[in-house]
């Protein structure tokens, strides 16, 4: 970490004055901190960062950062972020949200954002629940987790976001735990600097509707394997791990998607000529 003499931005400079609406103890506070620390580590000018989200407790995060932000509609954060990054390659684009936003209503965009491999970082604060709507199962919720909407449990097996990301072509895949802000910060720095689409699943407990997740801090452990560049190997590992392997699981080298080339090679006059008959 290089140290500039003056005007070095601190993590707190990346936080806005808005007070989070989150419940005390919510894992998302730590995610906020980790993002701020990662941005500070990279010393990115606050106004050159755009944080885009959908809807959910976690998706409130842009307003708590002192960057540009867009709190879009439920499930559409990735295409919104795609528009931003394709149009403005000079910005650092971070897309953030929850497991409901990203894997349920937004699942299709995840598939295609991974394929498209645009140079951005997608952070999913996974609490295996819809927090904002007060406790319904999300795609990562266990089959037998009882709730009002699905008495006795949703009855369907949770899916593997990281495998989906790998199968769809994400260029960087990691799993973090919000309770370890330093480790998470490091992974985020890595994700932001890695070219192409970086996907970081952050296990981030919902203390209100999933008090059982307080146990996560005991369950997480560093991945027993090193980062691979073989997506099929990484996928197989993730499909068979316990869901608590923490670390950068895959780093690929696919070139990132093209962005606007602002050079004009054909003027309106040229276009008009096409029509002359």
């Amino acid at each position: 970490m290089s140290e500039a003499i003056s005007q070095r931005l601190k993590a707190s400079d990346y936080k806005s004055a808005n007070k989070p609406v989150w419940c005390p103890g919510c894992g998302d506070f730590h995610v906020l901190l980790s993002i701020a620390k990662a941005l500070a580590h990279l010393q990115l000018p606050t106004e050159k960062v755009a944080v885009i989200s959908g809807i959910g407790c976690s998706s409130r995060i842009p307003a708590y950062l002192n960057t540009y932000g867009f709190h879009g509609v439920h499930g559409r954060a990735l295409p919104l972020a795609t528009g931003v990054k394709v149009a403005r390659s000079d910005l650092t684009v971070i897309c953030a949200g929850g497991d409901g936003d990203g894997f349920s209503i937004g699942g299709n965009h995840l598939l295609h954002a991974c394929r498209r491999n645009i140079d951005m970082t997608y952070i999913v604060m996974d609490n295996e629940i819809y927090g904002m709507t007060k406790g319904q199962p999300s795609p990562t919720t266990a089959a037998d987790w009882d709730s009002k909407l699905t008495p006795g449990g949703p009855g369907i097996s949770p899916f593997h976001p990281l495998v989906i990301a790998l199968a769809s072509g994400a260029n960087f895949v990691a799993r973090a735990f919000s309770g370890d802000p330093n480790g998470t910060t490091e992974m985020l720095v890595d994700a932001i600097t890695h070219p192409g689409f970086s996907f970081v699943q952050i296990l981030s407990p919902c203390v209100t509707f999933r008090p059982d997740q307080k146990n996560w801090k005991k369950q997480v452990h560093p991945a027993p394997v090193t980062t691979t560049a073989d997506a099929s190997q990484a996928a197989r590992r993730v499909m068979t791990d316990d869901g608590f392997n923490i670390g950068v699981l895959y780093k690929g080298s696919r070139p990132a998607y093209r962005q606007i080339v602002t050079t004009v090679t054909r003027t309106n006059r040229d276009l008009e000529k096409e029509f002359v008959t």
Partner: protein
Amino acid sequence: MSLSAHEMSSFSVALIGKGGSGVITAGEILLAAVGKAGGYGLMTRAVGPQIRGGEAAALLRLASHPVHCLDDDFDVLLGIDWLHAERFCAEIPLTTESLIISDSAGDPIPAEISASGARTVTLPLAELANSIEGGRANMVAAGLLAEFAGIPETALSAAIKEKLADRGASVIAASESCAALGRATARNNGVNFAPLHTSKDETRWMISGNQAAGLGAIRGGVRFAAAYPITPATELLEWLAPRLHDAGGTLVQAEDELASINMAIGASWSGIPALTATSGPGFSLMTESIGLAVSAEVPVVIVNVMRGGPSTGIPTKSEQSDLNIALYGLHGDAPHLVLAPNSIADCAFTTQWAVHLAEATQAPAIVLSDQFLGQANSITAPLADAGLFAARKISSEPTAGFNRYALTEDGISPMPLPGTSCGQYTADGLEHSTNASPSSSVADHLQQSDKRAHKLDAFEYGKPWADIEGNGELAVITWGSTTGAVREALGRLQDSGKNIKLISIRLLLPTLPQQFESALHGVTRLLVIEQNHSGQLHRFLRASYDLPATVETMHRSGPLLFRPQEIVERIQAWSAA
């Protein structure tokens, strides 16, 4: 065949043939040729249910003056063959004055078609074609029809060379020979049509509404488009793809319309004027996020090239039935802009204007084109650039305490683009206070609701809000593509001494009570004409404006488009009543 003064200046011809017979190519060559000759024209096509290679028809109107709709009936229907041709009956009205040309060696004319009572003539089209190595009957037909229309040989030959450029010299030569045989046959056949009066020296464009909309978008400053293919909007997107790139922008193919509208909003929010185009089903999927653009105050243009509805409906046919959803289809109170081009050429102006308005007001603008406008090819005078450009109220040097959603006099708040220091804020679909933080307070909701409505109501739109022509106590109101037939009908009525006022509304939303009132000044009776089943414009006008006591309506669902004469007749009956 003697034609009236009016009809003499326009010549309508339909070419029918099964897949591979080349009728569409022949039609396109004829259309280009009339343009090269300094005339005008338009062409639509009709196809059978087969995905590809089924029967097809090229419906052309060639004219000495600009034309914006097909004529009442066809002067000539030429069938290269007649397989399933009866399917097109409803779309190819014939009279006893019409001429049906068929191949001497071919099948008989289907009963449904000959039932029109049109005169018929058989010609050895195939035989003539076969006399030339590599010759094809569609080219014989092209020559024949060009001769009937009075299109000079040079024009036809240039059109053939252009259209078949990539097929090589021998194909071109054979085609020209076929055309010459066709011409000769026409001259020697006793059938005469008055030639079109054209002025060779004027430049003409050949352009479809979808292309014109694309051109308008680029002229207006659009540099980002997001696309999900859908008939009949696909060609607009396909036209834009390479051209946006060359203009210093880009087009991204999205996974669906939920994504395409959000990509466009994201690009626009970051500072690049953006557009997407779709049709009814895709438009439905976009409404939630168009509401986001309303709330977050992000400019964006959505072109809906309407087709037959509801649901999947009739993808390949035209209808004006998405007016309701465009006006009212966003949840909550969501003020936005709705515009409609009223001719193929106007697709360029209206789209350009829509970009300008969306950018100026930081609101989504919906442009309602339709399958007819979008996919018809037309010959027009060159379309001038309206000179309107995206001009957003940018906050380039925000200072401390800057409020993104500040209450300004005109309701438009300066917007900082990402990258601007001190301008950081979070755009939001949640209701917010002036400083962009989420708020459910009564006062904030009321203020922001007022602001969003006011900025559109208070904007100075100027004359283009409607095309208003003529005078009198009787007026016809219409919109979009139906304007073409209405305008022509009113022209004919005027020729016969009857003055009826035309009001073709280009800016449908916001409503403009003052402008509307003055447009209606002196009007005592109103006829509303539109192409949908439930009379959507009529209801919208009743809802929004004070109308004269007597209002009648003429509306029907597609896919059969209005023809001038039925409008003439309706107006005659109406005005006599």
